[in-house]
């Protein structure tokens, strides 16, 4: 399992549109990706649950990536967070 921490810098937080793009991006990976924030946890392929984390600007999230390709996938997911959230 690989993981990274990230502090949300986007004004609105993990909002609907990029969250949807995240879901699509993660579905293309083989790893299982889990996001933890505000004491809650959500699988990154589940849009409504990801939004229900309520991650806003300044919220610290922990992202866990698990699977055969986790080394490559964690890099992709981290890049996505930096570019979108």
């Amino acid at each position, binding site marked *: 399992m690989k993981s990274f921490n990230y502090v949300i810098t986007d004004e*609105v*937080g993990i*909002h*609907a*549109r990029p969250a*949807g793009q995240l*879901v*699509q991006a993660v579905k293309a990976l083989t790893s299982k990706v889990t996001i933890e924030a505000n004491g809650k946890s959500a699988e990154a*392929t*589940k*849009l*409504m*649950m990801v*939004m*229900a984390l*309520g991650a*806003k600007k300044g919220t610290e999230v922990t992202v866990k990536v698990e699977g055969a390709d986790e080394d490559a996938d964690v890099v992709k997911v981290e890049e996505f967070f930096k570019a979108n959230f």
Partner: protein
Amino acid sequence: MLQVKGKGIGKGVAIGRIFFYDKGDQQVNRTSISDTAAELARFEEAKAKAQEQLGRLYEKALEDVGEENAAIFEVHQMMLDDDDYLDSIKDIINNEKLCAEYAVATTGENFAEMFANMEDDYFKARSADVKDISERVVRILSGASEISDLTEPVILVAEDLAPSETVQFDKSKLLAFVTHLGSANSHTAILARMMNLPAVIGIDIDPAWNGKQAIVDGYTGTVTIEPDDELMKEMLAVKQKDEERRNLLQQLKGKPTISKSGKKIRLYANIGGVKDTGAALDNDAEGVGLFRSEFLYLESEDFPSEDTQFEAYKTVAQNMGDKQVVIRTLDLGADKQVDYFDLGHEDNPAMGYRAIRICLDRPEIFRTQLRAIFRASAYGNLAIMFPMIISLDEVLQCKKYIEEVKEELKAEGIPYKDDVEIGIMIETPAAAVISETLAKEVDFFSIGTNDLTQYTLAIDRQNAKLENINDSHHPAVLELIRMTIENGHKGGAWVGICGELAADTSLTKTFLDFGVDELSVSPSFILPVRDAVINAE
């Protein structure tokens, strides 16, 4: 053949099929089923259809209102594909053996509840999105007709239409409006005039009319369901006469708007969005006298950003070239409500928290709009005007914000025009009475006759029961208009009229005698008003 009488609003005659638009609460029954596989298939089919509709709405919105505002439909598509949402629906069908409508409605309510309970306003608002997608699927399941499914243009019949609904309609698919509620000054009426469509209000509508052939006569306010051949022939003749008159008016394009005695006025267009500039130019508008900026707020899920607004204002400025474009700042509240403003319920909204009152109370909203307008001023001939003014102090406050915004832009090195004309709407009796004082502070007045009439006569313009005494030619209203024009000129301001009355050709001569400088009307009225000016002494 069935004939019903109401009040004709938009002039003209339309012949076509009726589309009964029923937005009413959907009754979802908790019906047990036995064939779960068939019910799942029904759901999958409805879901696919909903996805297809959303895809089309996205494309249409992209074209009409731009990427940022269209994104909501893309989000809806993604939400409708959410695993948990779908699992919950399938569970209810499979395990509880209940119908798909109930499964979708219940799941939608549960997820909406989850978002509604969140702390942050942004996430709270997503509750409406979940409801929206669920309602869409339920509508499809129950076989209700969707306006986005239309292939031929129709006569739209509805209980009433809200501004937020009308913006969704594809205007090329509409022949006429028929509503039960609404008054001559309601949004349905304004929209009908804007689109140059016949409309009849105050009709006892019947869902059974859906799909039937009908004639809407905006001149007499008559709606005929399944007309006989004789009436059809008669109405086709009326339509043809209208066509001939339209062609005659086309010859007035490019001609100056000048009366027989040599009084020249500027004939401008009222527009409600970027896409109306086409109609304004087609009808030979000499400028835009009222650009209603509310559409940016009404079509949006959240406060439109400075950049979104800037793009819209810039596009209109560029489309109109060197012709003047008067942007009216945000005029929400009263009968135009937007959820995210959270304005709350008011017992008397027309006299309540609206327009400039909101702007001066919530300067962050006002500043964003002013910055967007001034940034766009570098790309054309823009002017700005403020609605619902009642005092000198409000005008001075507005001017102070303008100065601050200009200073900011200058400090940031962003180009803007320094000599943007500043004006105010005269639509309260208070403003009309003190117009001599106000004129010294502004470049122009624009008289908003709809509200001025409503406030002068103390008649709620949305109240259909008062229609018979709502006399916009009332001598008190006309006197306030005359006085405002005279006082404007004394203080060095030019004076225009941008309310519905500006298009009333029975008053064109009167307004010319008062010395009006500009008339701003719906694009479709430009040529008829030019005709009236040219033929006036």
